[in-house]
């Protein structure tokens, strides 16, 4: 049994009369890959936002490796080892793809320089053993973005922006990575190639992944466990083969025909 690294205990969050999260209890095992499913407004992103510090739960406790992170701001949570990508890629739009990654590694360099006013771009980041530029170039290559490295991110295609967004999150070497709809806006032909590549890099790094996804084929293919959200509650928490046959999941989220199609495709594969 893998070690539990993240625990969300009895999380509740409301926005006025709307309940966005209700009695959420989740334990996340190290190295696992978990799909978060649910219709729009079901509470998936609220859950991610609470874990990553964007929203503070009204009640409940979140612990990461035994540390209470419930009230920590996003930057502290990132520094502890939880990072995220975004449904709409959050990039630095006036910079090139390479510069976006240089900023990411530069932030780590500044953190490791222990409060120094500044540090040289050519200095080696102690924990990485490489310079900012070397790490950024290595990352660009690893994620297949070499041809886009000098292009301004605002003109990059949607799929490339998604990959860059994830590459930036991975630059922090997170222990847990949240991906918010990684395949949205990516063409059907490209989505599996992109996910194969990303998941391979994530597996190689030993990172635990939780990903929000509407595409059940993607959920079936990559997740080992599914958390199904409905009206702020988790209505199913199980292996995808079982979760996608759950009556409430079929009724409220997936639909019988889609579930049959996805499960049949998996058994064919």
């Amino acid at each position, binding site marked *: 049994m893998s070690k539990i690294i993240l625990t969300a205990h009895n999380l509740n969050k409301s926005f006025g009369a709307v309940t966005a999260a209700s009695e959420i209890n989740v334990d996340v095992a190290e190295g696992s890959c978990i799909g978060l499913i649910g219709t729009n407004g079901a509470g998936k992103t609220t859950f991610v936002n609470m874990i990553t510090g964007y929203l503070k739960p009204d009640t409940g406790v979140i612990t990461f490796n035994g540390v209470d992170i419930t009230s920590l701001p996003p*930057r502290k949570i990132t520094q502890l080892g939880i990072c995220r990508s975004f449904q709409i890629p959050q*990039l*630095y739009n006036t910079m090139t793809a390479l510069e976006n990654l240089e900023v990411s590694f530069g932030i780590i360099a*500044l953190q490791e320089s222990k409060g120094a006013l*500044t540090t040289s771009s050519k200095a080696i980041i102690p924990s990485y053993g490489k310079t900012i530029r070397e790490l950024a170039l290595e990352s660009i290559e690893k994620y297949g973005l070499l041809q886009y490295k000098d292009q301004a991110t605002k003109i990059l295609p949607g799929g490339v922006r998604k990959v860059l967004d994830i590459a*930036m999150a991975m630059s922090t070497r997170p222990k847990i990575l949240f991906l918010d709809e990684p395949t949205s806006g990516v063409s059907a032909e490209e989505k599996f190639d992109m996910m194969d590549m990303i998941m391979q890099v994530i597996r190689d790094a030993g990172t635990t992944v939780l990903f929000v996804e509407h595409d059940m084929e993607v959920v079936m293919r990559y997740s080992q466990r599914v958390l199904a959200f409905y009206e702020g509650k988790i209505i199913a928490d199980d292996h995808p083969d079982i979760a996608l046959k759950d009556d409430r999941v079929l009724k409220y989220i997936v639909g019988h025909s889609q579930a049959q199609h996805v499960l049949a495709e998996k058994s064919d594969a």
Partner: protein
Amino acid sequence: MKLDKSLVVMLGLLVAIFAASPWIPQWILFIITLAGANGLVVLGLMLFMRLGLVSFGQALFFCAGAYTTGMLSLLLKVSDIILLMVASGIIAGLLAYLLGFLLAKYRAIFFGLLSLAFSMILYGVLVKSETLGSTDGFTVSGLTILGLVPDPTQMKIVLFGITIIVVMASLLFVNMVLKSPRGLLLTAIRDNEIRAEYMGASAKSTIHLIYVIAGVLSGFGGAIAAMVSGHIDPNMTFWTTSGEFVFIAILGGIGSVSAPFIGALIFGVIQTIAYGYSPNTWQMTIGICLIAVILVLPDGLWSLMAKMRKNSRV
């Protein structure tokens, strides 16, 4: 540390001007020295602009530096230029450090107007201070350098030299900051603060740090202005003075650390000529120039030089 060709040229120019200073007419020396003082304040504003912020109250630290020099000279009889400069930078920096705790929480127009509010509070305090000359201010005189008492002509050259040294050191320091990961982070915060926070950076502490750096630079600028003009008054923290700094920042652009000084020099020249020809309507000339720059060169005069360099390469 990598130096841009333009910065090397700028530093070379400063050295050359200083070498030629004994032969430069006094009134030109005065304009260049004041441009150096203003340029230091605008260099700090340039850092804010890299962060996507505009301070409409940077005159607060300019005035704090000037009054530190004036008060040390008047009340404590401190006369050494170097001591006065250092003290002015420290006091303005300390003030910025304290106010930075509040200012760093605000963005956009709130940051701009809050900074303006603080500068106007200082204006109100100074206007009501009879011992500091109220609206008339007071003169700064009897300056020395390392125990020496130069005659007035020599003093102007000494002050010019000190200004050149401070400007060069500031150019190199700010260039070092901008070429480092901290510099890239400023643009990142401007582009997408939330993402920068999610990558582990603190936008608030970065803004606070820049606020202090800009405060120290402005304090140096104020000290120079006080010593060169020999007079200080509350107008140094009036909102129109802050407006002039923003004008210079727009005029020069934020493309290079040299741009604020070029902007400040051109502003000084325009102001002098406009005042000479039309003492009552010189502000109108400044206004027309600002409109022309925004319409023709929205990225400032520096963008013109960048374009020329690009064309020459092609």
